[in-house]
């Protein structure tokens, strides 16, 4: 009778399991074997639980508006610098196109035509081992910048009037205002220059969901911007600004749009097969982003009581249908409530 020595059992720490077989690792969390434990994600959150946001405004000296947004381990710094674009230098500026004149074309977005808002996302700051400096912007960085740019203009967040610098030419004529000819063009106020806002978004640390954090940082920094009072000095023929805080103005923003990204995690790795078990994971981190293909981004605004949907974008799969979309929009509305507190309070 031979006695076999007991086989040593192979056991790894959790992190090793996560690296070796990530998909079964996450699936085991979401579909636990024992009925007693509640399904959670690998990071301990429930599938519909967001990470707590932290917003801090006004910390940078040289920026007109600045903010630091921290959502979990994703940290973003956004600084807004303003510079002056003279109307005479602006390519494509026509006085007739200005919305204040009676014959301006409809849907003319002056800020977009003249490139007055310039957002840029910089990922290559060493925020994650995948993004090291020394390379030109990756596809992800370029697509994020473009998404922020198009959302910024399509949401009409910034009022074009805030960016214009008007000049009222002084009435140098003497008396004799009786004739019609006196009322010449020179006395009407004209736009002499525009404010251009350079919105620079730097990622200090990235742990998934860069778009939501970047958009929240843009909105928060725009709320923090203080533009100095600017006027056209006719003697020096240049735009001068005043330093006093009392004469500066804040931007009038239209609403408070918030972006919410969710990913769809499938039970089986193959794409085919209908009626597959799936989970909708909100506010994903890097680990989950590597395992999911299908993503939905919804931009909502609830500053006027009802949930206004500014944008819905869905790519990567066919699992999300009308019912799931409704559920996602509800989750987005709930997240608006969570994020609006620090954004409005800061």
């Amino acid at each position, binding site marked *: 009778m031979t006695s076999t020595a007991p086989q040593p059992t192979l056991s790894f720490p959790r992190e090793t399991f996560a690296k070796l077989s990530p998909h079964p690792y996450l699936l085991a969390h979401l579909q636990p074997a024992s009925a007693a434990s509640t399904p959670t994600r690998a990071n301990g959150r429930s599938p519909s639980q967001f990470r707590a946001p932290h917003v801090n405004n006004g910390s940078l000296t*040289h920026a007109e508006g600045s903010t630091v947004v921290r959502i979990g*381990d994703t940290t973003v*710094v956004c600084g807004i610098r303003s510079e002056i674009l003279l109307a005479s230098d*602006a390519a494509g500026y026509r006085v007739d196109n200005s919305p204040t004149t009676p014959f301006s074309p409809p849907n003319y977005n002056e800020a977009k035509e003249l490139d007055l808002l310039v*957002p840029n996302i910089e990922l290559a700051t*060493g925020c*994650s*081992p995948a993004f090291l400096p020394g390379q030109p912007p990756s596809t992800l960085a370029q697509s994020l910048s473009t998404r922020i740019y198009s959302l910024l203009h399509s949401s009409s967040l910034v009022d074009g009037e805030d960016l214009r610098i008007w000049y009222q030419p002084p009435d140098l004529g003497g008396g004799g205002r009786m004739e019609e000819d006196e009322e010449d063009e020179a006395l009407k106020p004209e736009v002499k220059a525009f404010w251009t806002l350079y919105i620079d978004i730097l990622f200090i640390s990235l742990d998934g969901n860069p778009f939501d954090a970047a958009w929240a940082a843009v909105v928060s920094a725009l709320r923090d911007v203080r533009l100095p009072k600017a006027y056209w000095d006719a003697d020096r023929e240049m735009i001068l600004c005043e330093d*006093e805080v009392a004469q500066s103005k804040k931007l009038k923003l239209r609403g408070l749009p918030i972006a919410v990204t969710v990913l769809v995690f499938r039970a089986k790795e193959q794409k085919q097969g209908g009626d597959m078990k799936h989970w909708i994971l909100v506010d994903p981190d890097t680990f989950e982003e590597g395992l999911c293909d299908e993503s939905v981004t919804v931009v909502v605004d609830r500053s006027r009581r009802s949930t206004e949907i500014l944008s819905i974008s869905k790519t990567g799969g066919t699992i999300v249908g009308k019912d799931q979309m409704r559920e996602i929009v509800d989750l987005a509305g709930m997240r608006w409530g969570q994020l609006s507190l620090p954004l409005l309070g800061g």
Partner: protein
Amino acid sequence: MTDRRRINGPLGGTSAPVFSKYLARDANDRPVRTRQPNVLRKMFLKTGVTPSASGSAYLELEASRPPKSSTPGLASLSTSGLKLTCTVHGPRPLPKSAPFSPHIILTTHVKYAPFATRKRRGYLRDASERDLGVHLETALRGVIIGDRWPKSGVEVIVTILEGEEDQWWGSGSNKAADWGMMSVLSGCITVASAAIADAGIDCVDVVSGGVVALVRDPLTSGKQSSAAIVMDPVPSEHEEIVAACIVAYLPGRDEITDIWVKGEIGSQDYGDSSYENLTDNAVQAALGSHRVLVAALKETADMKIGR
């Protein structure tokens, strides 16, 4: 030039806003140094700001208070502090195409954020950033025990969120040399050292940076102004900076890994402005920042071991 991979501004080009106060140039608005010549600014140092990196650190030096002027001005015209963040990735294996190296290959990147200085910077690296990167690499190369990691590389990336200015904004357009860069380099060395320690890379000692300057401020009427040595200079607080020196110092071994001296030294007009005197004072300044560095690293170690 248009960068096709980024969103560009208006084609016509924009210019920074000119403030009427700048044209009036009221000298009473210049900030004045209130510290003693041998007192450093308060430093805030914290590690672990980027959890996905091997090691990271954040350094902040407080900004100097503006003088008591009548109306509070917009922040964009006041003097800035220093805000740096550093991430360390490594030791990682070198790519297969790289030749064999018996010691670790250190790569440093230093980058100003576009909103870091009064004049907006672009996204492409320019000469001053490359200069800072080379000095940082020199300072760190002597500290890391490279033989323990053959065929490996480590990347040290410093991002400058807010940098020092070279001169007071109201001084007019006379070109000052890059004095702000000296304080920035001293901060870079300290923060990189903290991040490397956070990453657990073996070093012979903890290196810290110290900077001093030989400044000449106008005294009251008539007297010939003489130069004095101040530690941790803020360039906008002084009328004229004659020379500046920065060292990267190892207190445990009493060694210096990097020295950079700029300006006029050794001239009899400025008192005892010899090279040795400047470096001795810079070493004292480095010892000051070393104290803060060690205290921050002790906290990190307690947290890591306690976990």
